[in-house]
């Protein structure tokens, strides 16, 4: 890596570590935490969609799996949430393979709609499953602040650092994928999966691998969310709107790039919070109008997303 890049990354690292000090108010810290969380979710989606070209519109199902697994294990079996986190990841990865194996046979739009179908099916099942609280949801038992219990009430610092760590791991693995043979195969599949198959690349296997990585990080995000909000219900943990949001962040930010999804989250999440706070209280949905208009504009005028915009602005 070039020296200037290392310096830059170092500066970023310092800024990232120091952010909680700068962001004094819990509300702002919450915003930053949300940005990092959604940035990770978007990047996870990006692994499957951006690198490997499979557009999933049902990713929230992994989020919900992670959140519910760690929560149910905690509430019913007293399992430590960190172990529950691993359990959630495992379950989500298995689920991703179960979904992916048959569905990867489908092309483009058919696949996308299949992922919506799976998402809706799982959400409906969750809404009717008494053991996990059905429509009423689950309220996590409040425990005193501790890393082991994965709950912090006096301050948001620990949450911030945990989600930052998750994000960095996700970015590191994505960067590694990008550079490795795996990434090369993914790109080949994305460009033309038939051609890739004809040169001997086991297409389905690599799609499944991408799906596994993708699902794992989304599930981790789900567990984090459960420990952060301390309340779960199928409406908030696995709605279609969450799946859509994840895609949007990645697309607006710049799909297929390493920093695009995080950039998308960094711009769109505060924007939607801002417009909701400014305009939402009147019930006039001005915030959503701006959101929608912006999305269309980006898609039409700058399909490479904000990352592409920046690239253009500063010239190659």
């Amino acid at each position: 890596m070039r020296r200037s890049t290392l310096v830059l990354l170092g500066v970023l690292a310092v800024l990232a570590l120091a952010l909680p000090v700068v962001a004094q108010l819990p509300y702002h810290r919450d915003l930053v935490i949300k940005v990092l969380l959604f940035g990770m979710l978007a990047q996870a989606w990006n692994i499957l969609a951006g690198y490997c070209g499979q557009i999933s519109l049902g990713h929230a199902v992994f989020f919900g799996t992670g959140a519910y697994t760690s929560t149910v294990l905690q509430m019913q079996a007293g399992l430590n949430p960190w172990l529950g986190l691993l359990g959630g990841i495992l379950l989500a990865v298995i689920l991703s393979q179960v979904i992916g194996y048959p569905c990867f046979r489908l092309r483009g739009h058919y696949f996308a709609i299949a992922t919506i179908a799976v998402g809706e099916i799982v959400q409906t099942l969750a809404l009717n499953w008494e053991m996990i609280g059905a429509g009423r949801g689950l309220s996590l038992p409040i425990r005193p602040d501790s890393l082991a219990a994965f709950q912090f009430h006096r301050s948001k610092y620990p949450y911030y650092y945990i989600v930052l760590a998750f994000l960095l791991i996700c970015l590191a693995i994505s960067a590694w994928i990008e550079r490795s043979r795996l990434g090369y195969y993914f790109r080949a599949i994305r460009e033309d999966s038939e051609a890739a198959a004809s040169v001997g690349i086991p297409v389905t296997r690599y799609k499944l691998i991408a799906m596994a990585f993708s699902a794992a990080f989304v599930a981790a995000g789900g567990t984090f969310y459960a420990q952060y909000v301390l309340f779960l219900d199928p409406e908030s943990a696995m709605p279609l709107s969450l799946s859509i949001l994840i895609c949007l962040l990645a697309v607006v930010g710049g799909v297929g790039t390493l920093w695009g999804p995080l950039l998308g989250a960094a711009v769109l999440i505060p924007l939607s919070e801002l417009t909701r706070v400014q305009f939402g209280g009147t019930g006039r949905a001005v915030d959503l109008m701006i959101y929608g208009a912006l999305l269309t504009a980006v898609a039409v005028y700058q399909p490479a997303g904000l990352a592409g915009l920046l690239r253009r602005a500063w010239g190659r």
Partner: protein
Amino acid sequence: MGLLTIPPTDVLIQGILSGILMGFVYALIAAGLSLIFGLMEIVNFAHGEFLMLAMYTAFWMYALFALDPLLSVPICALVLFGVGVLVYYGIIGRILEGPMLAQIFATFGLGILLRAAAQFLWTPDFRQVPDAWVAGPVRLLGISLGLPLVVASLASLAAFAALSWFITRTETGVALEATAQDRQAAALMGINTDRMFALGWGIGGACVGVAGAFLTTFFYVFPDVGSTFGLLAYVAVALGGFGSIPGALVAGVIIGLIEVLAGLLIAPAFKYVAVFLLYLVVVLVRPQGLLGKF
């Protein structure tokens, strides 16, 4: 929960009939979507919001000018034709050669914008046409069914017939179909493909306009009304095969039937689970959908 409960025969027949009729309505909503996709391989993710606009149009024609929704049918068709053409020239035309992601999210953003704008302009309150000309039950062979639904499904069949006639018997329609089959060949034959695309969007809009007007006779209108109907429409198009209009008809009816039968025989909570499961099964066995071309 996995037990089947068999209802009495008359209830079963009533359910089957109403499911099929509702299916025709789903089919009409899906038809426009299928047409657009057949032409240019773009899924209009704002299709549900088009339906919502059509329903609001019919509602306001009623609220402001006391026009029964049946009379608003041509108005809605025209308005949505215009909307479709506008969306094509304003948005879609610019991203035809763009990446698939951009094509998906352009209409997605439009959908969000339309939904929010509807709430901004008309509040999230539910609107109904309380005394449409067609209202109340009607008895067919001793089975009670909703008259608005019967009328809507007949209209839907008529619309499909008209669409089919248009595509096979008129010069423009044939040109449209040719463009859908092979864009380059059509262009070589002197067909203005740009105009064909716009026309496709217009007709797609008009179909949903007609569906919306009829839907307003028995369903309530509010900014989010497009979401569930839209989702079922996507499934119908994919089930029937993207680009196949007869496929949309068949798939719509199947969805309507499964919705009711699953509700009656298994449990209403899983109505849509059954629909989505069916989609998955069909599409895995036949990846291009029931009647799809590719």
